[in-house]
């Protein structure tokens, strides 16, 4: 037990571990005692200042504020920003490299890569000749608007271009964090099972577009496309779905058209 939580790592180990432990605990109690004494003093008549404070603020208020600022910045510069989310291994990076090859001559593109460790994905993107920046979240399971903000400082984004933010591979946590993107795009590969949308409803609910990737593998799998689409619409009736294979290129034209159309929409200045 002590080996796991590290609490036994003291001056004495092994044989006397339990003993040491008890002593340590006794010590803790003494400390508690002192604390409670202090508390009693704080509660002496006339000194008690315990009171209620109303906050009524979202836990994510800070992230949402950063995201709001970024969204305004993106909008001012006609940038289309897409937050790509999925489980690890859905083919996000391959989808990106294939997309970039099709678009980079016409459209400015930059990529922010989020992973727990390594710069491998950013290197794959850089190899296509566009700007890419890797954010390593370390132990973190998602990107937040603050980190993305700092990444933006290091990128030279040209007006009216596309910024892809490839989030950490995780179908849970990134759903809650607004990065200021125009859309969350959830990528689901057919090797994953058609019931992912109802197993991870938060993400499919938060996304505007779902990409069903690796459809070239369908003949080898029992994946039921209709059922998958039905599940996704069940969680999010407004979600749009594109089927494609980044590897063979099937369906990529649809996706490229969608991107171009969305980029055009960023030029509209709403009142």
């Amino acid at each position, binding site marked *: 037990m002590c080996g796991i939580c590290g609490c036994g790592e003291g001056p004495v180990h092994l044989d006397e571990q339990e003993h040491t432990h008890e002593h340590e605990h006794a010590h803790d109690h003494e400390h508690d005692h002192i604390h409670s004494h202090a508390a009693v003093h704080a509660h002496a008549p006339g000194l008690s200042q315990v009171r209620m*404070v109303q*906050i009524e603020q979202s*836990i*994510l208020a800070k992230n949402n504020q950063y995201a709001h600022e970024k969204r305004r910045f993106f909008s001012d510069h006609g940038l289309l920003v897409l937050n790509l989310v999925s489980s690890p291994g859905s083919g996000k990076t391959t989808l990106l490299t294939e997309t970039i090859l099709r678009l980079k001559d016409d459209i400015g593109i930059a990529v922010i890569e989020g992973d727990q460790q390594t710069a491998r994905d950013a290197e794959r993107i850089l190899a296509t000749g566009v700007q890419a920046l890797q954010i390593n979240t370390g132990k973190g399971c998602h990107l937040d608007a603050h980190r993305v903000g700092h990444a933006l400082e290091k990128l030279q984004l040209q007006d009216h271009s596309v910024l892809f933010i490839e989030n950490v591979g995780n179908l849970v946590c990134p759903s809650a964090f607004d990065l200021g993107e125009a859309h969350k795009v959830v990528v689901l590969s057919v090797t994953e099972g058609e019931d992912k949308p109802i197993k991870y409803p938060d993400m499919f609910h938060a996304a505007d577009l779902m990409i069903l990737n690796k459809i070239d593998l369908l003949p080898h799998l029992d994946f039921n496309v209709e059922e998958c689409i039905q599940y996704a619409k*069940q969680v999010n009736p407004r979600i749009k779905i594109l089927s494609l294979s980044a590897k063979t290129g099937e369906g990529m034209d649809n996706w490229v058209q969608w991107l171009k159309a969305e980029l055009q929409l960023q030029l509209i200045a709403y009142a």
Partner: protein
Amino acid sequence: MHEMSLCESILQTLEQQAGGQAYQKVRTVWLEIGALAGVEIEALRFSFDVVMEGSLAEGAKLEIIQVPGQAWCLPCGVNVPVEQLYDPCPHCGSHQLQVNGGDQMLIKELEVE
């Protein structure tokens, strides 16, 4: 896993408010968490104690007000209760639902000194 980040955000707010609201210690934190907010309450409780350690809210009590999920059913034109995002309307069975309640995660109030 993001419950840890949520607790770090809570701590940031507690620290930010300490100056303006003139408190040195937080004794209780009331949160309002919707059933559709994607927050695992037990993970939140665990992370809360860990994150608050050594801060102005060390040892603070965490009170959670759970709010049921609610959505607007487009075909029925009424609000209906939902427990999951993939639930159908309990009246007509439709999935044309727009969540309009129970997706919040709020810091409601604090007991401070």
